[in-house]
């Protein structure tokens, strides 16, 4: 265990944890868009910047990646931090001017409008979906392609992916609702910013409802080594 100070408050933390994790455990708010406890931190949105003082040196670090240490002093807000967060929000607002989640966070951080020309994106490339697909689902159907300003979220060749199982985890985890899915009749539709895919849903043998993509069920069945009829019924119709 180490002892550190966050905003003047002394807190105990497990070694190896990041400042952001420890702050959240202690109900100290640090804004962030690209962090999720289930996946490897990425450090891309830079909103979780904090000021740390250690070894007599004060510097800005991103709290989702910086590990706690004994005697560390952390400031989660200051004029300098606020100015950086506001500029980042201005940049994101210009990129995604019509995205509600981004508008809301911007307002929360004191930004009403952006100084820059407006684009029209929904996705802000935080790669949470990419990381969840790879690390949690274990599939890697989507990735960030191209470089720099041309960077985009897509499946290879922008074509339907052979490996996607239609589970929709990407949509669940997206912090700004840039990925959506809907089930209509016997089909699931997943909409990514640059392409979409359709999946056939499995019909429950008992109630007749379409309840999950066949590909996903098949994937889980194989992973868990379940018998062929394991998913014949939907969860509601299993005893």
């Amino acid at each position, binding site marked *: 265990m180490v002892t550190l100070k966050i905003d003047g408050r002394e807190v105990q933390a497990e070694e190896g944890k990041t400042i952001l994790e420890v702050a959240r455990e202690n109900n100290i708010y640090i804004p962030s868009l690209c962090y999720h406890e289930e996946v490897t931190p990425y450090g891309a949105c830079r909103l979780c910047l904090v000021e740390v003082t250690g070894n007599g040196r004060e510097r800005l670090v991103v709290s989702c990646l910086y590990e706690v240490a004994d005697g560390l002093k952390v400031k989660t807000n200051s004029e300098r931090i606020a100015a950086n967060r506001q500029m980042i929000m201005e940049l994101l607002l210009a990129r995604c001017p019509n995205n509600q989640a981004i508008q809301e966070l911007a307002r929360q951080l004191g930004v009403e409008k952006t100084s820059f020309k407006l684009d029209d994106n929904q996705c802000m490339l935080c790669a949470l979906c*990419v990381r969840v697909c*790879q690390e949690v689902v274990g599939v*890697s*159907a*989507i*990735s*960030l*392609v*191209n*470089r720099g300003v041309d960077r985009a979220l897509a*499946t*290879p*060749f922008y074509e339907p992916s*052979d*490996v996607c199982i239609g589970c929709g985890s990407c949509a669940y985890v997206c912090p700004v609702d840039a990925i959506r899915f809907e089930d209509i009749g016997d089909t699931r539709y997943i909409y990514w910013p640059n392409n979409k895919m359709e999946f056939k849903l499995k019909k429950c043998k008992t109630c007749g409802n379409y309840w999950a993509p066949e590909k996903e069920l098949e994937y889980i069945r194989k992973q868990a080594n379940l018998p062929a009829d394991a998913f014949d019924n939907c969860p509601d119709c299993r005893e």
Partner: protein
Amino acid sequence: MPTKSKPAKPKVKAILDSYQGDPSMLVSILQDVQAEYNYLPKETLTQVSQDLDIPLTRVYSVATFFKAFSLKPRGRHIINVCLGTACHVRGAVRIRDEIERELDIKPGETTEDFKFTLETVNCVGACALGPIVIIDSKYSGQMKPDKVKTLLESYD
């Protein structure tokens, strides 16, 4: 698009073998594949992914990240305009603009007859000759806008 015969897979296989199927050599492998086919045909990327046993997303992301790779067929002659700083202060942009105008393509594009592909490079380190245009591997130094037409016409 010209009708490209489906790439003979043994070529990719041979390249992969020369790197002992080591996925960490992905960038070099793709460079060799591109040298073989003049670009990275889709089938080759799929095969690289399968044979190296790495996700296609990773191969595709790498192939679209590095400037050296092209996923589209390129022309018979590759024009590279050096846009390094030394060439820039000596007027490289005017040369690029003139080539764009002459061929009616932008950097990264290929003429309809597949004669030329226009690319730009960030410095070839022959700064004494700037501005430089490299066609295939031939350097033409101290370029001027009015020399562009003659230079391009010398290729067939």
